[in-house]
C-alpha cells in the first residue's frame, strides 16, 4: 500500500512506487466496464505503471494544512426555482437520438432474465 512507501523508499534504489502497488488490470477493467484484448493488456500493463510513477510525483508536495478542493470557483450551491419548464430538445428529436425506441417509448434491454 501507498502509505508504506516512504519506508520502502529509504531501502535504496530508484523510487518506483508502482512496484509496490497492486495494478491488477483485470480488476480495474471490471471497474471500468471494459473487455481488454490480450494486446491491449500487454500495452496497458507496460504503460500504466510508468504513468503511475509519474503522477506519484505529487507525494513530494507538502499539502499539510491545505484543503482538497474539487472546484476553485467561489460558487457554493446553485439553485433554481422548482417550476416545470420545457426541455430544449424536442420530444421527437430526443427519441430519435436514442439508440432504440418502440413507438414513442425509449427501449432498453431487461435487467432480469
Amino acid at each position, binding site marked *: *500500500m*501507498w*502509505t508504506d512507501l516512504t519506508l520502502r523508499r529509504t531501502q535504496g534504489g530508484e523510487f518506483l512506487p508502482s512496484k509496490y*502497488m*497492486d*495494478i491488477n*488490470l483485470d*480488476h*480495474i*477493467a471490471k*471497474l*471500468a*466496464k*471494459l*473487455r*481488454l484484448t490480450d494486446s*491491449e493488456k500487454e*500495452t*496497458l500493463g507496460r*504503460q*500504466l505503471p*510508468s*504513468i*503511475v510513477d*509519474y*503522477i*506519484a*510525483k*505529487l*507525494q*513530494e*508536495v507538502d*499539502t499539510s494544512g*491545505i*484543503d*482538497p*478542493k*474539487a*472546484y*476553485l*470557483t467561489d*460558487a457554493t450551491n*446553485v439553485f*433554481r426555482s422548482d417550476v416545470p419548464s420545457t*426541455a*430544449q*430538445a*424536442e420530444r421527437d*428529436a*430526443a427519441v*430519435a*437520438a*436514442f*439508440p*432504440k425506441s418502440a413507438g414513442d417509448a425509449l427501449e*432498453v*434491454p*431487461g*435487467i432480469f*432474465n
Partner: protein
Amino acid sequence: MSELLTVKAIRDAVAEGTVTAEEIVKNSLARIDAEDAEIGAFLEVFHTRALEKAREIDAMKVRGDVLPRLAGVPVAIKDNMLLMGEKASAGSKILQDYTSAYSATVVARLEEAGAIIVGRTNMDEFAMGSSTETSAFQKTRNPWDTSRVPGGSSGGSCAAVAAGFVAAALGSDTGGSIRQPAALCGIVGLKPTYGRVSRYGIVALASSLDQVGPFAHTVEDAMLVMEVIEGRDEHDATSVELDSKPVAELLEPSMKGLRVGVPKEYFIDGMDPEVRARVEEAIEVFRANGAEIIDISLPLSPYALPTYYIIQPAEASSNLARFDGMRYGTRAPGALEDSYLTARSEGFGLEVKRRIMLGSFILSAGYYDAFYKKSLAVRNALRKEFDEAFKQVDVIISPTTPGTAWKLGEKFDDPIAMYLADVFTTPANIAGLPGISIPCGFANDLPVGLQLQAKPFDEMTMYKAAAAYQTLTDWHTKVPQA
C-alpha cells in the same frame, strides 16, 4: 493582412453590404472542398445548412434589419459540440451515429449572433490527446508542414483557422487543447477563466477543467467571439454571471506600466532553444514598450501536469461511464452486462481506454486518498501560489509549449512524451485561470506560441497586453503557403 480574412473584416463588410454572406460562405466552402483533403480539419461540412443560414442573413440585410454581431462570419465547431439535427461524435466510434437533439449553448449563441457554422472539426477522441491523432476517423495535418501534427485535442478547429478555411472556430481546453494547437499552428487560442463560458451541450471530458474558447488570427477576433459565447447560462450551474464583458471596440491595447511576471519554472532544460529564444525576444518587446518585467517563481507549476493526470482521468472515467450503448450511439447485442462491455470495448480507442483504466484505478479503494484527494490539495495549493504571484504582477508570460509541431506518429506510442507537450498549459486549467496563446515568431520555420495568463476573470488585462503585442509585431499576419 489583406490575405487574411478576419472576423472583424468579414462582419464589417457584410454589414456595409460590400459583400454578401452567401459569397463569403461559398468562398469558405470552396476552400474547404478544394484543400481540406490535404489538411483533414473537417469531419463533416454542413454545405446546405451553411448556405441557407447565409441567405437568411442576406435577406435580413435586404429588408434593412440591423444585423447581429457576427452576421455572415463562417466558423467551425469542434466535434464535441452539439448542433441540433447534426452529428456530434467527439472523435469517437462509439458516437459516430449520434445526432444532436439540441444545440450547445455556445453553438446556439453563435448562430443567434449570425455566425455561419460551416462544419464540425476533427479532434482527439473525447478530447484525449495532444496531437489529434487519437481521432477514430482521420488524421489532421499542420497547415505549416503537412508531415506534422496540428497539436490537439482541438486540432481540426485550429487547422481550419490556420489554413484560412474559416475566420474563427471553437475549441475546448481541458489541459491546453486550445492554446497548445494554436501555438503549433501559429494562431491565437484562448482558454477563458473556468466558469466564464457555458459547458452545456459539450461532450464532457473533465468537468472541473473543461472550458470552451475561440481560435482566431487576432486578439480582437477572439474577443468578438467571446462577447457572444460568454456569460451565465442557466443550463450550466458552474457558469458565472459576469459583471461586465470586455468589448472589442473599446479595447485599448497597451503595455505601459504593465507588470509582467516571467516564471523561471517555464523555461526548462530540454525545451527547444529556438522556442526559448523567440519567447525571450517577445519579452523584450514588452520591456521596450513600457512593461515592467519581473522575474518570479512558481515552484508548484511543474506539479500541474501530474495533478492533471490524476484529476482528468478520474473525472473522465466517471463522465464516460454514460457511454454504454444504452443512451447514445449504437446498442450492442446480448444481455445487459455483455452489451455494456461490447459497446464500450469496441467503441472506445486505446487512449480512451488507457485514461478510463487510469481513472478507475485512481478512484479505486486504497488509492483514492493517495492520488485523487492529494491531487485536489495540490490543486488548491497551486491556485494559492498563483494568487500570491498576481499580487505582484498583472500577467504571467511564458512559452505555450516546450517545442514546435512534431511529426505525425512521433510521440504516438509514448503517452508520457505526448502528455509533456501540455506541461505549460495545464497550470491554467488546474488553477482555473484564463490563458491565451499568440504567435510570436518561428523556430526552424515552424510557429512558436507565447502564453499569457492572468487572474481569474481578468481577461481584460490579458487582452490589452496580447493585443498590444499584436499591434507591435506582425507574426499573426503570417499564413502558411498553400
